[in-house]
């Protein structure tokens, strides 16, 4: 009996020291990425690629599990947040998770996470080929002369493209006749039938139509010009600097870790992430999907998500689409 006890004691000590060792040499075992969106989507594909590259740097496997459902990816976020902040759980996500809190899906703010941003496909304004506007100035002049005279299509109220339209309207000080559609594809179809003459979707979504000459790109809704297969699409910010107050609101695909995880682990992950972003496969993926690649971490990434959270939450609240007042969550306007 005594022998067994001693043996157990030794075993226990050995195990504790092994764990202590593990904490020093992160990562000692495989890492899990709880991905809040479904398999095969943009967030899923980007995460799987980047995780594979990071795994090479860290020397362990990173398993990606899709845990979907809830509101704004809340089921996956709860799952990820419910695990210890030891750096062995990451949460794969995109910009739309910031709506989870005001929609009543997630009872915390986004400031419980530290974000890693891979990138995303930026939004742009395009018009149908028969529309009389050749540049964004012509468009703005026309809409200011005749408010609400131009029909603008975007996916449903509260979507990122709708938020871009609202921000553009504020930046130029004019209003369009907003026609909501079920999806970006549906809004682009409506442009084909002539039901709307202006659409706001992402470069990735418009790419085929722009190539076929069925949509004319006018301006990017990000601070930089965009090189679309050799054609430069100018940024609307150049002509309308006021836009920088409200924009950019971009698709941000990436992942997050609990903010209370040890700093040393975060530093290690950030270094691995930066290396992974440089990998050829990751860069090619970004190019094929017309992404603007970011590779942002730490404060820079968190600031972007803070802004997204504020804009999304308050816009949804103003539209009557939010369940919980952003004020009660402490989200600044």
């Amino acid at each position, binding site marked *: 009996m005594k022998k067994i006890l001693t043996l157990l004691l030794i075993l226990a000590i050995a195990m504790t020291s092994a764990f202590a060792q593990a904490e020093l040499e992160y990562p000692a075992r495989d890492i899990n990425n709880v991905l809040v969106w479904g398999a095969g989507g943009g967030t899923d594909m980007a995460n799987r690629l980047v995780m594979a590259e990071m795994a090479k740097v860290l020397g362990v496997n990173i398993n990606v599990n899709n845990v979907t459902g809830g509101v704004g990816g809340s089921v996956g976020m709860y799952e990820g947040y419910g695990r210890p902040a030891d750096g062995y759980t990451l949460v794969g996500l995109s910009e739309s998770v910031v709506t989870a809190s005001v929609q009543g899906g997630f009872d915390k703010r986004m400031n419980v996470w530290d974000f890693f941003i891979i990138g995303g496909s930026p939004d742009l304004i395009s018009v149908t080929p028969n529309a009389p506007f050749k540049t964004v100035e012509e468009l703005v002049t026309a809409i200011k002369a005749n408010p609400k005279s131009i029909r603008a299509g975007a996916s449903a109220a*509260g979507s990122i493209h709708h938020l871009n339209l609202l921000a553009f309207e504020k930046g130029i000080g004019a209003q369009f006749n907003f026609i909501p559609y079920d999806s970006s594809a549906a809004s682009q179809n409506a442009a084909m039938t002539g*039901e709307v003459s202006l659409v706001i979707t992402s470069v990735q979504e418009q790419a085929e139509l722009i190539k076929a000459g069925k949509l004319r790109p006018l301006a990017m809704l990000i601070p930089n010009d965009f090189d679309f297969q050799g054609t430069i699409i100018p940024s609307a910010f150049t002509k309308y600097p006021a836009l920088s107050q409200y924009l950019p609101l971009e698709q941000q695909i990436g992942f997050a870790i609990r903010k209370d995880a040890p700093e040393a682990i975060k530093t290690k992950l950030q270094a691995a992430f930066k290396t992974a972003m440089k990998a050829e496969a990751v860069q090619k993926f970004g190019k094929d999907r017309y992404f603007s690649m970011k590779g942002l971490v730490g404060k820079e990434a968190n600031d972007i998500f803070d802004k997204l959270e504020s804009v999304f939450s308050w816009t949804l609240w103003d539209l009557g689409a939010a369940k919980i007042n952003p004020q009660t969550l402490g989200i600044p306007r």
Partner: protein
Amino acid sequence: MDIGQQFGSFFANIFSIISNPTLLLVLFGSTLMGIIFGALPGLTATLGVALLTTLTYSMSTESAMIALMGIYVGAVYGGSYGSIMINIPGTAAAAATALEGYPMALRGEAGKALGLTTTSSAIGTAIGMFFLVIFTPVIAALALQFTSFEFFLLAFFGILISGSISCPDTVQKGWITGFLGLFLAMVGRDPLQVYPRFTLGMMQLESGIEVVPVLIGAFGIPQIIQVLKDRQVVAEPAKLDRVLPSFKTISRNIKHIFRSALIGVGIGAVPGIGEDIAAWVSYGTAKKTSKNPEKFGTGCEEGIIASEVANNACIGGAMIPLLSMGIPGSPPAAMLLGALMLHGVAPGPMLEIEQPGFTLKISAILLLASFAMWVVGILLAKQVVKLLRVPPALFMPVVAVLCLIGSYALGLKVFNLYLMIPMGILTYYLTGMGYPIPPLVIGVILGTMADANLRRGLMVSQGSLAPFFSRPVALILLIVIVLTFITNMGFYKKLMTNLKGRLKK
């Protein structure tokens, strides 16, 4: 795309499928499953497609479509086994077949009847496919004429027509269930301004009522209750003889084959009604136009051919409005619509723009499915019938469990079960009172489309109703809707009989 290219890409599709062993396996496997499903009383093509849909979540779009088309074609055909062998139609679509097939089987010609059915079904499916290829581009060419106003009218017409045709007694009952479906579709946050409607403050209702639990509940549960309640007695299957029909039999009936195929395609193309009605109408027409109608009901070839060609030709017909307008032409096609959307394919006027060649791919799959059905049918005619010996008391509970899993699997929501079961009980009583169920399901499916497009259209026109009259396609649809309304009203029928009476004087 010109015709030559179309043919090229059609055969390229066929070759790419038959050169892939996995896809071939899926094709034959799902067709076989469909036949078994159809042959078992109480299991319909709709239920088969519904249950299989939940299993195709993780498949590629192509293999999912092969599996679903296979089970669809197989199940519509498989229903005839029960009709012929034991006088219990496996599906409603095969009910007309029982009138001729069973007497034939009693004469000891069950094999002949089965062979004839198999061949007729294969020919019917192939003809339906032919019409799908010819007509879809014609309708798709109109695609850019379809804006929100047209989509609204189309959805409204779909609900109206399904209510008009699927009801055994008065059309009003069909319309009532249709509008009940429309109401259910309104539950949830509205798609345009995200305002919650009829959600009773329940979180689960925010995203609206999902189609799959309604479908499985409405079609599955009443059937399970009915079969268990009636305690259907299963007879000893008769012996089988020669199965393959002679070429002479086919050539002798070529006229019937073509007439029945046309009826099948036509009825299939009308939204909301399906194989069962196609079979009855075709059988009725065959009897009416026959030189010796007294032969019908005693086991004649023409009767079997009429119902079996028509119910399978209906499949191709039902795919025409599904692919070109996003409106399901039959209840199983409604399920297919859901399956397509799960796989990111949005059928409708824009399909050929977004996914060029998709219709041809479906046509190729349909042709292959009819071939697979024929091969499997001829080979398995003798074996499949044995499944009918499984007593319903053992079998239906299994189906009930499959229904539960099917509803739950979509989004893994327990709430869907709470939705499905009351839905099933409600529809059981509605069926008992003679209310047709298809319009209800069509209402749920097309309701969102009708609602969102009407209000979107009014946003575009800034409140003006003028586009209903100024847009040519909208005007045509509006006229058709008004005519459908009027011709189904009691006063119109009285007026017509009055007029006819006066003309005779």
